[in-house]
């Protein structure tokens, strides 16, 4: 999978080099599906809430945008190496990441959640001692696990969000820490019916203040324009219109 992803990324990156001349903005996202934010349909088109928001921002900035799927673990290096211009793939704003790149203001914020089989009683993270917990590599959720669960809990690291869900269903992990919203489609699926949200996890230090667009440090002009575009679509109702199609609560967060 890893190999496939990197080959795919390489192909896409080389393809996008040729389009450099058109001065399109290249928005990078994870090459794996991350519903309901983004997923690839059968005909290869990207669709989802975040895609619509990204396109709306591009329209507000009067830019032509292309979506460039990149393996998640290489997405920040891809940005700094100018293979993409923006990371627009549900990346949480964290201090650690800010050392390398800039972030726009947040465009949404959802809490992290711990899910586990319905029969299991978990009321606090102390109940996870001696259990196996799945997280995605290089995510704020794996940082959370590292910070709070490293003592006495077996943390299993997965390359892909869907894989730890699969192993939760298979029973190879006892619980999963991930974004509450991203987990929703899984919990509604036949396989996810095994499990439920046990608690929401909060720690601003780990999870940050929300999700923003990742931008190269030197592109301050682009940063200002993206921030202005976020304000614009928030004010003219475009944001709410798109959000209403997907969520029955305020995805922008408090």
């Amino acid at each position, binding site marked *: 999978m890893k190999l496939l992803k990197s080959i795919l990324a390489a192909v896409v990156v080389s393809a996008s080099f040729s389009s450099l001349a058109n001065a399109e903005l290249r928005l990078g996202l994870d090459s794996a599906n991350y519903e309901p934010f983004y997923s690839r349909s059968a005909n290869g088109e990207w669709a989802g809430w975040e895609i619509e928001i990204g396109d709306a921002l591009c329209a507000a900035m009067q830019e032509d945008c292309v979506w460039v799927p990149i393996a998640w673990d290489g997405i920040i290096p891809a940005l700094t190496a100018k293979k993409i211009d923006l990371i627009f793939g549900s990346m949480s704003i964290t201090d650690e990441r800010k050392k390398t790149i800039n972030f726009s203001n947040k465009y949404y914020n959802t809490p992290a959640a711990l899910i586990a089989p319905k029969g299991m009683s978990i009321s606090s993270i102390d109940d996870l001692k001696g259990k196996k917990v799945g997280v995605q*590599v*290089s995510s704020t959720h794996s940082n959370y696990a590292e910070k709070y669960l490293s003592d006495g809990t077996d943390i299993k690291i997965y390359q892909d969000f869907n894989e730890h869900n699969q*192993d939760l269903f298979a029973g190879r992990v006892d619980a999963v820490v991930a974004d509450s919203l991203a987990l929703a489609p899984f919990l509604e699926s036949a396989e996810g019916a095994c499990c439920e949200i046990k608690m929401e996890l909060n720690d601003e230090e780990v999870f940050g203040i929300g999700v923003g667009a990742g931008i190269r440090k030197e592109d301050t002009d682009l940063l200002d324009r993206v921030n202005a575009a976020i304000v614009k679509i928030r004010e003219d109702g475009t944001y709410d219109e798109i959000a209403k199609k997907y969520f029955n609560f305020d995805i922008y967060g408090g």
Partner: protein
Amino acid sequence: MVWDWLPVYLPRFVEGLWITIKLFSLSIFFGFALAIPIGLVQVAGPKWLGYIAHGFCTLFRGTPLLIQLWLLYYGLGSVFPYYPGLRESFIWPILVEAFPYAIVAFSLSVAAYEGHVMKGAFQSVPKGELEAGRAFGMSGFTLLWRVWLPRALQNVLPTLAGEAVLTLKSVPLASTITIFGVYGVGSIVRQDTYRTYEPLLFVGFIYICITGLIVVLFRWLENRVPSESQM
């Protein structure tokens, strides 16, 4: 180049190195143990067994190891929930671990590649030598153990060394089923520090060192068996 992360992650790399070496050597061991009969039955076994062995080699050499690994790990995993008794059974603690799946997948792959090599190796031993052995009154097993296998191995040791190195370099695939060897630790460093080149170079360096060890080991083996000119 920034290397300040290295001391921080060194203990994890040592852990990863151990996992990489364990996975590699166990796969080679089990794989080769399977490869000998797989090669032999294609040359000397009953026809139907030879066909099965040949089919096995074709199937496992013809499909990507990554797919075999995933079919075994995630494929089997998706079936587990339909056997509720399984979770209480004695084998469940093994089924939830990823390592046994990797050992099985890698061993089968090694068995297929090296089984094919061993088939050629057994064929390459001159008939006259086997007939000479029989003329001495050697039984089938003694003949195999004293003449056929040693002579076959002698011919293909360099090829087996190459196969072993290729197997070593497939080990990073195991990181897709949560087995974080040297490569996996390297990717954690990449994600934590956002440095690309240094961790990858470091992982590459470790792999070159292990490859060097394998080459030296096989050269030592080759020197221990007398070559054609010395006989």
